[in-house]
């Protein structure tokens, strides 16, 4: 395959582009059989972020996360020994759903059906009327574990029997690139929506900035761009083995609205206003503004297959695009911001989350229409600009996993 040549732009491209294609067939990807293959070859073989350590502050803290492509309910718990583990949320007696609440703190997990009891480390510690189970060895009936690793504040799981890569290798250069960047944040917003659209279509809406000038003209009229970058080209874009990322450049001419100014002067500047910070210091995390671009606004990183991280100076956003089936996706969004101390900080959070929510809703607005168009079968192939290179990356990684995964 010949590498697609680069056209002139301000973008600094980094990484191996040799496997990328600028034409992608989406029609084949919305077929039921293809999706079944993706579950086996992509979702069961990838490291998947599912929650944050902020949900698990103390021994016994737990959260139950539904993972739609696997139709699995996963119990993530910080054990009495402080370790974070993930288990299928299934009682080992008769396969009832073990933990019914979404989050909390417990010393052990008792099944409502017959009272079997499991420790926070997943061991079966109590069987009611135990003498009636002939020859039962409790050691054989601990909760079924899922591979689980913590990176920064993110908890990842892997459904593979034997993951082919460690999480460290899976994340590559990003593994040591954030160094506590997310530690001092608090959750300030959490939304979800189910859409009638294929998961590829949904995640594709968030990994290019080409659309921002058009789709977001009402919500973000001037946050990027400016006289020297009218088409809002990405200043930096990087293709990695599985993942991809780019940075966006702030428009120095951005005009704050009166309420935006009121809030951000009382708290801290957040999107769509961007504080100037020096990211060139040697100890500044290497994956934050990785291209060290001037007038840096934020980074967008796709962690393959279905997670997008957007991070600015005082905030970050986690987005999941969980396929339910080939025609439906559940999108979950959690916004984090610097920890609020004052009323002004809270107002900054409020202003940010709402401006951000409306932009998110605009992004959703194209998905169902695209999916419906694809379903007609009239147009199966889409063509991608080099500013949409993260989509090219997404499909090349997906294709490789579909063709080469055992």
């Amino acid at each position: 395959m010949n590498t697609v040549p680069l056209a002139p732009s301000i973008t600094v491209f980094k990484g191996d582009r040799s496997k990328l294609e600028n034409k992608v067939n989406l029609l084949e990807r919305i077929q039921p059989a293809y999706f079944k293959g993706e579950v086996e070859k992509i979702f069961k073989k990838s490291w998947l972020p599912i929650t944050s350590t902020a949900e698990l502050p103390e021994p016994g803290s737990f959260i139950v996360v539904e993972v739609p492509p696997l139709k699995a309910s996963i119990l993530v718990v910080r054990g009495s020994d402080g370790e974070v583990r993930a288990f299928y949320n299934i009682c080992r007696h008769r396969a009832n759903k073990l933990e019914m609440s979404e989050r909390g703190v417990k010393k052990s997990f008792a099944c409502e059906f017959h009272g079997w009891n499991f420790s926070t480390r997943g061991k079966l510690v109590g069987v009611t009327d135990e003498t009636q189970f002939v020859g039962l060895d409790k050691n054989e009936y601990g909760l079924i574990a899922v591979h689980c690793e913590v990176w920064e504040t993110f908890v990842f799981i892997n459904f593979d029997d034997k993951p082919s890569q460690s999480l460290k290798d899976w994340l590559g250069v990003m593994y040591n690139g954030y160094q506590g960047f997310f530690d001092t944040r608090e959750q300030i917003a959490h939304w979800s929506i189910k859409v009638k659209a294929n998961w590829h279509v949904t995640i594709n809406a968030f990994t290019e900035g080409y659309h921002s000038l058009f789709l977001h003209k009402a919500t973000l009229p001037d946050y990027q761009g400016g006289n020297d970058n009218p088409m809002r080209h990405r200043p930096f874009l990087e293709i990695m083995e599985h993942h991809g990322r780019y940075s966006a450049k702030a428009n120095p001419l951005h005009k704050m609205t009166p309420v935006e100014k009121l809030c951000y002067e009382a708290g801290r500047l957040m999107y769509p206003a961007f504080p100037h910070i020096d990211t060139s210091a040697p100890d500044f995390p290497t994956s934050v503004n990785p291209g060290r671009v001037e007038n840096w606004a934020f980074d967008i990183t796709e962690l393959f297959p279905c997670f997008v991280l957007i991070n600015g100076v005082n905030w970050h956003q986690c987005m999941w695009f969980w396929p339910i089936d080939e025609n439906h996706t559940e999108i979950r969004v959690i916004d984090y911001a610097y920890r609020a101390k004052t009323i002004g900080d809270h107002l900054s959070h409020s202003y940010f989350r709402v401006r951000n929510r409306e932009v998110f809703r605009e992004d959703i607005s194209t998905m169902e229409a695209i999916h419906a168009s694809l379903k007609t079968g009239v147009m199966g192939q889409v063509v991608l600009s080099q500013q949409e290179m993260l989509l090219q990356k997404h499909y090349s990684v997906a294709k490789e996993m579909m063709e080469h995964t055992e």
Partner: protein
Amino acid sequence: MNNNQVELATKKLPAQFKDLEHLVEEWALPNERVRYAKLVSISKAHLQVFFDEMLPPAKSIMDYLAPYDVKELKGELLTLYQLLVTFVETAHPIELNWSTTNIEFSEEPTRLNFHGPSADH
């Protein structure tokens, strides 16, 4: 802010802001979920009246509330804070010159689900 505080809000405001009390019933709303539901259910003209009345005193409300910890707010102070946050979270359609209070071509607004902090405060 926590769930218990919702019950602690009153219909009254501190003396300095008495002339805004007629806004309380409709606009002092406790969390993002209900503020969003309110926003997408009203006309821009209706929102404009609220915005125009809140913009001039907004800074003095902020200054008045500044010494307090949000988690400790109750009674009139909590009501005042909720009124101010509703203003902050509904200002964008006016300030960005939208034609309505909703984004164009949006998904059915009621399909968006609010959890955690978006449902609590």
